[in-house]
């Protein structure tokens, strides 16, 4: 009986918490401050620890109305926010942040039904605030993710609020159930709901690179890759990872670049060679605006206040 209800093997490491489940293995790193390894069916899905993301590459309208100037501290927060706390809960028991010698009481045969680990990130904004990313590994091996942003009076409006996954190699494409085309909260009326396949990791070739590729109101996205960085991996079959909505639809972009890489380029050809997949899963997206490009603000309904709490959830399945 035990084996049918407690599928998760928990490895209490000295710098990590390992969780092995059906066809999956997760390593949560105390040193890296987050989920360091996400293996599904033997394939690694993470190149670096997922981090909260706040910035979007300045759009022409952002430049024109001074939004990026006003909200510039979120660029720093996007780059330099860091983990300040870890909290672990196994089968509804709070374990705090257990390290040796406390963990000497465990063995190589620790089993659980549910493992939860929360990482709290402190932003580099002034004033500071916290974002807590809580991972829950469920008994069937799937991963639940909740991102909670603590509202902080005095902070400028957020360009975006999401969790950014950087995958080791470029995706061959992605499939999603949501809205057609590139959408933003104030530009999604014309989109058609459906299931769409996108080949590769297209960057919308705006004359000057900027925020692009957002998909609002998404139920699920499945990223498919063909290659890994594992030198022993000779398997040539495609493999996939899915992000699926839990309580509410989410937004995402699946690009080869971070906001900072896009921000740094004046032309499409200045963007670096495509080496990674950058999957941003967003709980809040600022509108793009459109009245003019030299001062008009995005309509108020499409701003993201940094002064109030935000929370969003999704799950990851292999």
């Amino acid at each position, binding site marked *: 009986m035990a084996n049918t209800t407690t599928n998760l093997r928990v490895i209490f490491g000295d710098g990590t918490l390992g969780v092995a489940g059906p066809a999956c293995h997760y390593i949560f790193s105390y040193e890296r401050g987050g989920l360091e390894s996400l293996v599904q069916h033997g394939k690694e899905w993470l190149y670096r620890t997922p981090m909260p993301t706040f910035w979007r590459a300045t759009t022409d*309208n952002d430049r024109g109305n001074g939004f990026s100037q006003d909200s510039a501290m979120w660029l720093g927060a996007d780059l330099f926010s860091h983990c300040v706390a870890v909290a672990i809960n196994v089968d509804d028991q709070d374990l705090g942040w257990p390290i040796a010698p406390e963990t000497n009481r465990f063995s190589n045969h620790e089993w659980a039904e549910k493992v939860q680990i929360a990482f709290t990130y402190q932003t580099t904004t002034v004033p500071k605030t916290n974002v807590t990313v809580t991972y829950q590994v469920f008994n069937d091996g799937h991963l639940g993710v909740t991102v909670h942003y603590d509202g902080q009076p005095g902070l400028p409006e957020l360009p975006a609020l999401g969790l950014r996954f950087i995958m080791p190699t470029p995706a061959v494409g992605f499939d999603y159930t949501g809205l057609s085309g*590139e959408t933003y909260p104030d530009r999604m009326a014309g989109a058609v709901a459906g299931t769409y396949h996108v080949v590769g990791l297209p960057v919308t070739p*705006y004359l000057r690179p*900027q925020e692009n590729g957002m998909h609002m109101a998404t139920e699920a996205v499945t990223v498919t890759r063909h290659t890994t960085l594992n030198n022993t991996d000779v398997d040539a079959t495609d493999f996939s990872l899915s992000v699926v909505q839990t309580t509410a639809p989410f937004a995402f972009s699946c690009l080869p670049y971070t906001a900072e890489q896009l921000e740094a380029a004046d*032309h499409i*050809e200045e963007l670096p060679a495509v080496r990674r997949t950058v999957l941003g899963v967003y709980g809040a997206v600022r509108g793009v*605006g*459109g*009245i003019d490009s030299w001062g008009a603000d995005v309509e108020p309904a499409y701003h993201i206040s940094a002064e109030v709490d935000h929370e969003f959830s999704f799950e990851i399945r292999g």
Partner: protein
Amino acid sequence: MEPSINWLDDPQVFRVGTLPAHSDHRAYRSGEEIERGVSSYIQSLDGDWQFQYAKNPAERPVGFFEPDYDRDHFFTIQVPGHIELENFSQIHYINTLYPWEGKVYRRPAYVLSDADTGAGMFSAADNNCVGAYAKRFDLEEPLRNNRVTVQFDGVEQAMYLWLNGHFVGYAEDSFSQSEFDLTPYIQDTDNVIAVEVFKQSTAAFLEDQDMFRFSGIFRSVRLTAQPEIHVNDLAIHSTVTADLTTGHLAVTLQLNDHPAAGTVSLTVTDDQGEMVAEASEKATEQVHFGDFEVANVRLWCHSDPYRYHLQLTVRDADGAVLEVVPYDFGFRRFELVDKVMMLNGQRLILNGVNRHEWNPDRGRAITQADMVADLQVFKENNINAVRTCHYPDQIPWYTMCDEAGIYMMAETNLETHGSWQKMGAVEPSYNVPGSVSQWRDAVLDRAKNNYEVFKNHPSILFWSLGNESYAGEVLAEMNAYYKRVDSTRLTHYEGVYRNRAYADRISDVESRMYETPENIKAYLDDHPEKPFLNCEYMHDMGNSLGGMASYVNLINQYPMYQGGFIWDYIDQALYVTDEVTGNRVLRYGGDFDDRHSDYDFSGDGLMFANRQPKPAMQEVRYYYGQYNN
């Protein structure tokens, strides 16, 4: 007449030896030629021309137009095309400020003082480049023994013309056709036509559109032969009775001076070939047909761009056909009713775009294929209207819009942005044309060129006085001109918003650009005098076009809100070969060491410069599909 280089400096000299602007009809020798779409009265001069470049007038090859001038060392250049894109002259993009910003101090002649003649401003400039074009040609057999003219569809910005060493004329107004009579000097064989093109003249003050600043012969050049009786101008007056059931047609022709004895006959048929009107008159300098009544007339509109087929047949005294002129036209009734623009009794909603002519390889020297592609994009995305920002487009575009049912705002080639707005602030101290008499004729002539060439197109609903030129007596006169010559269309001008003193005399519509939905409501809530349209809105620079709902929602709230034209249709960017990767990449202002520049500000289209749609297009398709009339 001897040409003078000082004409470049004098706003009062803008055309010398040109033929009057006339309708854009084409004459054929026979119905069979019409079927084939090729007229043996036409000889194209497009293709290779000899070319020499000089960076300023002082260094230009004086006398190059003489037939025996040694042009062996000349380069070869393609006509049509821009001198800059052949890498002779520097590519430069700038938006509102004049292109000499930071390089030359200039004030337009006569504006600050009557004593300020502008002498030497352009003719003695050290950075006003010159293109010397020459082409040797034989007159094709079918053109010989006729009167022969040459038509330049677009030359930027000032041109002098010689044939076989004889000076023929001078023209400005870069985006209008300039036509010259070559008959006195033309030979059957071994002609040398020569054109000296100056990048800047006083016309530069009038052509400050937000665009790459090019020069050269950038549209087609052709010879036309005209028989002893020739239709110079065709004016089709088609109106519809208030009950929308009956059309009235009157046709006025201007023939050549002293036409030979003969006849001109007219037929008008519907698309089933049924005769609607038929008449014949003796050939005289002016010929008038009609009034014809067309019962149960089928009206032209976006959803049913129905056109009747007019055909003129010119015969000599023996009854032999000299020329045949086909022209498809429409009946539609466009009017203000209770301050609302009504087309054929329906409230007009403009689902429009502003469209610069653009091709990423060819600049503004766009191709027929580009135009066909653009109309296909319009159709797919419920775009029903186009503003020809901010100059007359290539002539075939108007006929294509007639055929496609696209409502046109036909703009006069005029923008003097740098003369009245600096760093965003209204500062009209040296505005042209303003009320400056020395600039009057040149500016009014641009309106005449626009009207006379395009007057027969049902697609044109608005004559636009131009763009962003502030307002003064000259623009008020231009408005009066359009009203005087044409009662079937409305006038449009946004710039009067900047100078309300002229509100009663300029523009039949309240036009604004980039106005907020709140301010539009405020206007419409406060006893508005004129219907409202956005001549430019939804600035689609980069990743934009958010919030369109707030504009579209006004359509149901306010009958006098009648839509507008998105800025704009296509990014202006140029393909170059990347220095690093060797790939073809799109570049923008400042990428050619060009300064002062406005960089990527021309990247504000619904389409990328390579005619791929931006993601925002689905939003346009959706909203424009809701009120597609």
